[in-house]
């Protein structure tokens, strides 16, 4: 029985405007247990990164956050900034997309790591140095001793990303939020980072919220996956259930758009149209205009959440029918 580390329920983020307000997130529910890797997938502008910011209490003003986010039993929303500061880094850590921009180019890797460790734990700089060293070794940086003395520009993108993971984990957080950590890296290095994150989740019981747009990585790395569209999670469940038997038409199409080696060329699906403007999301189902199974009801009411076995949830009016079709095949 694994314990829940991150629990998000009814999360909404709205930016008030002069004439109309823009809802970026419109009711997000998910949870991540210790040792679990949850993949959050979606196209740009669907609210993936805003979900991550909300979990860290970093929604920029004047954004209004509603709902509940609890990390290790502690509520994030409404907590004073000073308490959030101690929480960030010690309980929750985050790694970002572009490793080069996450480090200060003026200081050595060692200096930056020691600063962070001293800030969160009551240790001397010398002790912090040896902690940093062992953390770097844990993420398998070659010549860790030497790497501590190097400036960020002297390290490669893959090494910096490893160092950032080491830095993120140096204060033993329970939850790691990774916002597209491999997008800026080459495929062979990406494979190394993905296997590193998997190992950390398995060995240290780290809960990971992995944000990506690459369904391939999700299927290689994650235990469960949540597919987002226009500020809502439209399908959620174990990787096997969602990838092998997708029930939401958006998930089905998204899987079809990825060109895969060895698949017949004519099978490539393209989704017509674009993601709706968050300020002008149509009533009813947000995917209706791009969906080929849409009926009148899709334009009128917000689809209910349909539950299937193993916590596989789908936000679609036609999910039950889709399920019957899949089963009969």
């Amino acid at each position: 029985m694994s314990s829940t580390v991150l629990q998000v329920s009814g999360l909404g983020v709205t930016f008030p405007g002069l004439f109309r307000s823009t809802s970026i997130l419109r009711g997000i529910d998910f949870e991540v247990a210790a040792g679990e890797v949850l993949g959050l997938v979606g196209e740009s502008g669907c609210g993936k990164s805003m979900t991550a910011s909300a979990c860290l209490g970093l929604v920029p003003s004047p954004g209004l956050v509603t709902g509940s986010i609890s990390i290790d039993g502690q509520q994030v929303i409404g907590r004073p900034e000073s308490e959030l500061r101690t929480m960030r880094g010690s309980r929750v850590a985050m790694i970002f997309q572009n490793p080069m921009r996450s480090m200060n180019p003026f200081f050595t890797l060692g200096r930056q790591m020691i600063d962070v460790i001293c800030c969160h734990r009551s240790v001397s700089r010398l002790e912090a140095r040896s902690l940093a060293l062992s953390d770097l070794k844990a993420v398998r940086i070659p010549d860790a001793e030497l790497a501590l003395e190097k400036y960020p520009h002297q390290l490669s993108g893959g090494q910096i990303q490893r160092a950032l993971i080491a830095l993120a984990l140096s204060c033993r957080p329970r939850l790691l939020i990774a916002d597209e950590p491999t997008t800026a890296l080459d495929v062979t290095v990406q494979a190394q980072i993905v296997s590193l994150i998997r190992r950390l989740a398995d060995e240290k019981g780290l809960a990971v919220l992995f944000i990506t747009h690459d369904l391939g990585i999700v299927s290689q790395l994650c235990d469960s996956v949540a597919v987002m569209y226009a500020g809502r999670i439209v399908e959620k469940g174990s990787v096997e259930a969602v990838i092998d038997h997708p029930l939401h038409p958006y998930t089905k199409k998204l899987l079809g758009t990825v060109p895969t080696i060895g698949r017949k060329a004519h099978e490539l699906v393209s989704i017509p149209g674009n993601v709706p403007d968050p300020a002008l999301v149509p009533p009813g189902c947000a995917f209706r205009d791009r969906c080929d199974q849409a009926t009148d009801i899709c334009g009128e009411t917000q689809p209910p959440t349909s539950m299937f076995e193993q916590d596989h949830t789908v936000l679609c009016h036609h999910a039950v029918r889709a399920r019957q079709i899949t089963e009969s095949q």
Partner: protein
Amino acid sequence: MNPASTPSLLSVAGLRKVYTTRNGTIKALDGVSFDIAAGETLALVGESGCGKSTLASALLGLASFDAGTIAIDGDAITARSNWTKLPPRRDVGVVFQNPQSSLDPKMTIRSIVGEPLQMVGARGDALTRRVTGLLSQVGLGPEFLKRYPHQLSGGQQQRVAIARALALEPRILILDEPTAALDVSVQAQILKLLKALQVRTNVSYLFITHDLGVVDYLANRVAVMYLGRIVESGPVADVFADPRHPYTQALLDAVPVIDPSRRRQQAPLDGEVPSPINRPSGCSFSPRCRWATNACRAHDPELCEDGGGRANACFHPLNVGKSA
């Protein structure tokens, strides 16, 4: 498509480019040779720093090169033949990775797509008609003529960039990661468009990418680059089904596959692409290769023909006995 039977439209032979820096010389391109036939797509694959983009700049005349020849339909230019003699640019179009930075934000779509046409004397109504025609080729209506790039989505911007590249009816289009900045659903639209355009106009593509799935969808032949050299080339289906060079195999293994049952198989390739400044002796892949022997570290393998239009640069090619 067999390069021996069809005359090649673009032929590159022994292309070399060396950058001299304070820390030493960088061989960005170290003897690159390939051919592209009319209506064919050659995909150029490799990780960052392997020379893909330097090669594109050399073909476009944006960078000089130190040795070798670039011939377009027999019209060859050689290195240092004359600084002013650029490749026949009208025959080569280009689409860059990020449409937001390759379209001028102060120009309307009409002037962006019409600019190359003005170079050849088109003006007024004739220009508008031609631009409308080009836009309809890429699936955009005439209502886009007066819009500015920021009013368009990423996919529409990339369509405009493709329309501009096609304006002078080039015979070769260099596509430098044209879908890397786009979402997958939009990427699929652009890939379908590129395929349809090729069928209609018989234009050749040099497709630079690091996404092997896209290669399999769009390309006829593939060339894998590592540290400024082509290490393996051949028809896409053959190379991907049965890679000969260990680096090609490693790249294929590193691609995340959408198939949860194939999860957590083997340890990925160790190490990273070495810096081109201190290139390893012998085969440049040998420090990362699990099959490397002393011969690999001492001598440099040449790109050798392998039958079936394939070639590889490896002393110990994989799977040779299997297919023979």
